[in-house]
């Protein structure tokens, strides 16, 4: 089997088999369950339009997915370096590029697991309307590169900073900043600063695409501008992760 796939499988195992990873999945399930319950049982929230419900749910899934990707992204290099399990991996005859590819593959698998995991919740709140499939499609097309991008950013920050703890803290602050449009709502985004930030923020680009496709029934193709922002950021974050990994290798690989 290809070395990158082996490493990616191992990374996925960290989520699916380790007590820590399983605890995170349970936490995600609890968060999604509470949100779903609120959407269907709360007097005011239950009055929301079906499209709005799917939009809110897609945003939450993206945020939780990015959070999970950040946690596991930091752990993939910095966590392993801190625990001492990275040097043995670097001392195998596997090319460094393949190791990095495996680590990035792990983030993709984690998001895939999270995505499949979230589908029943999305269905539970959105199956009565006609926006469910649009929601799933837009989440897959626009949400996936955002989540994977933040995973790469966290992986790079962890490799670049002294410890996994500082890597995690910095990544979470950046994620919180990027997710601010979701947290503070549309009013903040209408300001000059908010609009300027929106144009370069991949998270905002994804939320705007969700808004246009799910609520305004725009076509996915018409969202190419948002897709461009997301893909450019993804490319930058992957390059950052690559450079940070090379820096880690040049500085002794955690030995």
């Amino acid at each position: 089997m290809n070395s990158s796939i082996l490493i990616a499988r191992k990374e996925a195992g960290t989520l699916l088999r380790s007590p820590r990873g399983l605890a995170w999945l349970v936490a995600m399930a609890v968060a999604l369950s509470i949100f779903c319950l609120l959407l269907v049982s709360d007097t005011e929230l239950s009055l929301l339009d079906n499209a709005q419900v799917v939009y809110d749910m897609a945003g939450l899934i993206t945020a939780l997915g990015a959070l999970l990707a950040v946690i596991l992204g930091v752990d993939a290099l910095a966590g392993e370096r801190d625990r001492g399990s990275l040097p043995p991996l670097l001392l195998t005859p596997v090319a460094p590029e393949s190791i990095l590819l495996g680590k990035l593959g792990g983030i993709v698998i984690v998001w895939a697991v999270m995505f499949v995991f979230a589908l029943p919740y999305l269905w539970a709140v959105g199956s009565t309307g006609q926006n469910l499939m649009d929601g799933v499609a837009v989440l897959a097309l626009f949400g996936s590169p955002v989540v994977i991008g933040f995973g790469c950013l966290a992986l790079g920050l962890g490799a670049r900073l002294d410890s996994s703890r500082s890597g995690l803290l910095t990544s979470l602050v950046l994620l919180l900043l990027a997710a601010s449009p979701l947290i503070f709502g549309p009013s903040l985004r209408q300001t000059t600063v908010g609009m300027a930030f929106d144009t370069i923020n991949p998270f905002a680009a994804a939320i705007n695409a969700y808004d246009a496709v799910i609520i305004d029934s725009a076509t996915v193709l018409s969202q190419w501008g948002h897709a461009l922002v997301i893909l450019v950021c993804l490319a930058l974050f992957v390059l950052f992760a690559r450079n940070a990994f090379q820096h880690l290798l040049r500085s002794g690989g955690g030995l």
Partner: protein
Amino acid sequence: MLVSVNELHLHRGGTPVLRGVNLALDAGDIYGLLGPNGAGKSTTIAAILGLLRPHSGTVQVLGRSPQTDARTIHRALGVLPERFGFYDWMTAPEYLDLFARLYGRHLASVEIARKLETVGLSPKPRQTIGTFSRGMRQRLALARALLPDPKLLILDEPTNGLDPRGRRELHDLLRALVGQGMGILLCTHLLDDVDRLCGRIGILMEGRTVIEGAVSDLLDNQGSRVRYRIKWSGELPSATMMPQHVSVLARDHGSWLVEIESGVPAADAWREMLFAGWPVAEVMREGGGLESLYLTMTEGRPT
């Protein structure tokens, strides 16, 4: 020559860390790399493994440069770092299987079990690594290091966490591996390990090799003879009856401090003394030898 390091200089963050390290390890030999904390042992190992780029000097491993042929070298290399971690949710066979595959090998479960047996590890079925004791982890790390059937084994503090029986078993295993032609670079603070295993040593101080060579030659040259305290159980004969290669350094009430000429086995000296009528009751080793050499070379430095 398995490893050859000549005048290695290396900077980290602009600060010179290695300032002239020399080392030579042949196949079928165990080389002890010694030195106080911060002397540059781990940095030297990182340079040998190709993880750090030298500022000047040369490093050759298996006849290749670790800077340009790291992957080829890693294929024939086993490493046990001082600080090693695992994927705690895996079982030991799963862990070895993963690394075997990363080395491009597919091992049947019987072969994996045999590898674990070689290092004296027999975990329960489905027992995850997270539940292993430190000694078990040490053995698993060694099993991983031996996976590629390496020509060169680099061990950093390999007996840490092992009980006396485990240490002896490891010594026996290392001797057997060396007997098969493997070369071992042993980085340790335990002079007893070095004394028992190493044919050559190098002592590092502040990033420099201060002494390097065959243990017997170094002890001879430094006059680092082994000292013993002998307790008597009766009347002592005339001092002229003392064997020639035993020198008396101090005489206390009921015990003497003696030194044996290098190259003379201590057991032979005691036998001669007993034949000459010396009432030897107890013999205790008191420093000297490798310990004395190490302390002399690293005098005044924290260990």
